[in-house]
């Protein structure tokens, strides 16, 4: 006792620890450190809302100020998780409303948020500051009105890519006249027009506004008025960027943009008319982030714009940029760190643009800081992948989507095993990998052997047998999230590596060959996992045990089986056989 620091001193020291990993480590030193740490933890990250319950969180960490919660599995983004699956926010808010009156921040991803939850948030937390709803759904603009009306200290309202039922644009007018604390507003996912004068007044009276991402309904001719009122903006998202070409609109835009000396990030650009792009040229030299992924603009216009942005670090763009545009990118933007190329016509049978593997090879060669890539294309070769891997061993995220499932190396017609093998062998810091194209068990052998820092792996239409899955589960030491669809994996590798699943956040398998019987076995043997079968064909008991389940979602949890399951989700556990009969 004589040797230990007073609690206050330890608390003071712990306050410098911001990473969860460090705080978790500190908690394990001894009981008193555990106690001190839990009372002073202010930020909580819950990667899977069903891994823990609100009650457990609150019991351990009584003084939390900021929560970040993720709900549905990632494949929900591609409609693989049926409607009504879960990830409801309300139980969390209702528990936190009682226990965390000083809660300031709520950041959510893929959760179902109702207007009721939003209203409860707005009324329960007096010092509420930050609300980020990323890819969420279930609420309407009425819920936003509650937030606007009641959160007097609100700083951030970010609705990125959420699905909001847009009843009207009137919600924005609920911000009181004496509300001046706004720092960030992202309403880009909304459809309705908000009252423009209300928006103008809001922007005028919030001197700390740094981020403003408008929605499509704000026409280009109205932008100058907003920009003039917020010359301190750092991040700006336009609305629809088109109009009949009129010189006065253009010159107003040029002037307004020129006044924004701090702009670093631009986005929006729906319905772009290329003639209006040059209005931004004055700010391009400072731009580090550009999201043109909705801009249906041809390559030459894109190149014109990009060539003015030598400090570009992050570019999201459609495949209209083509190989030629990517070549230009690689020569103008030497600071590029992240590139995402989205498909303009993903369902077309024939390529509509001249974008091939060559574009990615060129960028990997020309941009020495490139570390994160998402690339949709229609052809790939092992040679190209090998070149990319050798050019860019510093990749952290590599997500390649060859649009045709099981497309082979278009030059040799071989599988792309060696290409992806080169990626994992050369890129020793790789944390995230998405595979596509024709792939055998061999690629998984390479991944299991080399991808020791890989945390998230996405697999589709790949592999030959359970051996492939076994390589991954037994070899990838850092694996946290594994999502698999349409692969011929059964239960053998799963059962052989069952304990591995407790070291991961989650496993998703859909349209594979895991039998119901195997799922039951896994559930029985691994009580600390929730083994959930998702099957819309009715109870798995109505089919033979050998019948594969439609979808399987396995995740570690301390909260026990879900209590809010819909009728197409079954938890496999000891009582499964009884409960389902």
């Amino acid at each position, binding site marked *: 006792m004589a040797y230990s620091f007073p609690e206050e001193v330890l608390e003071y020291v712990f306050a410098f620890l911001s990473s969860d990993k460090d705080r978790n480590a500190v908690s394990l030193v001894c009981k008193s450190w555990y106690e001190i740490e839990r009372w002073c933890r202010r930020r909580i990250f819950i990667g899977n809302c069903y891994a823990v319950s609100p009650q457990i969180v609150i019991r351990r960490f009584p003084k939390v100020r900021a929560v970040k919660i993720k709900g549905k599995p990632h494949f929900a*983004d*591609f*409609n*693989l998780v049926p409607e009504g699956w879960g990830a409801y926010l309300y139980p969390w808010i209702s528990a936190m409303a009682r226990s965390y009156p000083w809660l300031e921040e709520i950041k959510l991803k893929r959760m179902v948020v109702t207007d009721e939850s939003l209203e409860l948030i707005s009324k329960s937390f007096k010092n509420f500051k930050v609300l980020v709803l990323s890819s969420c759904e279930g609420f309407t603009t009425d819920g936003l009105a509650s937030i606007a009306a009641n959160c007097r200290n609100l700083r951030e309202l970010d609705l990125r890519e959420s*699905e909001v039922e847009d009843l009207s644009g009137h919600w924005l007018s609920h911000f009181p006249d004496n509300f001046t604390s706004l720092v960030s507003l992202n309403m880009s996912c909304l459809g309705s027009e908000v009252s423009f004068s209300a928006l103008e007044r809001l922007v005028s009276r919030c001197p700390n506004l740094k981020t403003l991402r408008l929605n499509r309904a704000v026409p280009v001719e109205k932008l100058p008025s907003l920009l003039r009122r917020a010359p301190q903006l750092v991040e700006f998202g336009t609305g629809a960027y088109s109009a009949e*070409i009129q010189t006065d609109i253009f010159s107003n835009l040029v002037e307004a943009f020129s006044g924004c000396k701090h702009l670093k990030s631009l986005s929006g650009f*729906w*319905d772009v*008319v290329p003639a209006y792009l040059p209005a931004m040229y004055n700010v391009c030299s400072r731009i580090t982030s550009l999201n043109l*992924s*909705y801009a*249906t603009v*041809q390559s030459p216009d894109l190149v014109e714009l990009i060539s003015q942005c030598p400090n570009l670090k992050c570019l999201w763009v459609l495949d209209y940029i083509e190989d030629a545009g990517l070549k230009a990118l690689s020569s103008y933007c030497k600071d590029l760190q992240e590139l995402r190329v*989205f*498909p303009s016509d*993903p*369902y077309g049978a024939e390529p509509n643009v001249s974008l091939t593997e060559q574009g990615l090879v060129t960028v990997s060669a020309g941009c020495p800081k490139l570390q994160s890539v998402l690339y*949709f294309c229609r052809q790939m070769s092992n040679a190209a992948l090998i070149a990319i891997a050798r050019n860019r061993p510093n990749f952290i995220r590599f997500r390649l*989507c060859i*649009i045709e*499932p*099981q497309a082979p190396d278009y030059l040799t017609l071989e599988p792309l095993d060696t290409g992806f093998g080169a990626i994992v062998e050369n890129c020793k810091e790789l944390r995230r990998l998405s595979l596509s194209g024709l792939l055998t068990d061999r690629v998984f*052998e390479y991944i*299991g*052997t080399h991808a020791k820092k890989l945390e998230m792996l996405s697999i589709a*239409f790949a592999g*030959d*047998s*359970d*051996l492939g899955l076994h390589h991954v589960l*037994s070899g990838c*030491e850092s694996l946290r999230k594994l999502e698999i*669809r*349409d*692969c*011929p994996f*059964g*239960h*053998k590798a799963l*059962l*052989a*590596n*069952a*304990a*591995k699943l*407790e*070291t991961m956040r989650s496993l998703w398998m859909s349209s*594979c*060959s895991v039998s119901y019987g195997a799922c039951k*076995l896994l559930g029985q*043997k691994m009580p600390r996992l929730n083994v959930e079968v998702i099957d819309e064909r009715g109870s798995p008991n109505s*089919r*033979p*045990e*050998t*019948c*594969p*389940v439609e979808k399987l979602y396995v995740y570690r949890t301390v909260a026990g089986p879900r209590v809010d399951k819909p009728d197409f989700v079954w938890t496999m556990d000891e009582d499964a*056989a009884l409960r389902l*009969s």
Partner: protein
Amino acid sequence: MAMISEEHNKEKLGFEETELRLGLPGGGGGIVNGDFGKNTNANGKRGYLETVNLKLNLSLKETEKGENLQKEKNLISCSNNAVKPPTKTQVVGWPPVRSFRKNVMAVQKSNSEEGVGGTATFVKVSMDGAPYLRKVDLNMYKSYQDLYGALGKMFSSFTMGKCDSQGMMDFMNESKLMDLLNGSDFVPTYEDKDGDWMLVGDVPWEMFVGSCKRLRIMKGTEAIGLAPRALEKCKYRS
């Protein structure tokens, strides 16, 4: 390590009396032939070149219904195999484009004509004798008639003749065409991708939008050079 049997490769699931035993946490977590000592070890380097024996010992307790677990045929009857994926259009969630993005692109595409890549297609429109040019977005119109209506409105102050939608449609008719071309009325023409000047109306609308670079509303007498081609086409049409 023994070689994996061919049978296992072919996914025949033998559910004979077997027993699953799990390894220590943090380790490979599985048993290979009941052999703890040679268990897979997360740090160990295994000979990946050799195949691993996955002749696992599985235990499935008899369920209360006592189903016969050896009915391999059942696999086929309720097969959910995804060995061969269906065509692109039928596969749910592939390619992996978020609904949000798909919806936005779909809206933008429907706002513009197919085949022009979703961009606005502004082309200059000149009319002989008019003091200045105009520009139109061809994507705003769905047919020739639409376009003529708009052009007529745009240039109505300059024309004396029949430069309205009806007037322009007249030239689709052979005899009327000759009248037009011999008269002082106006005829719409356009420059296509190859740089040739063509009479408007010959090709399907979508093709026209894709190939038109600029429009010129010519005096009939000047358009006479385009007539032979147009006449040919009139004949084919009727």
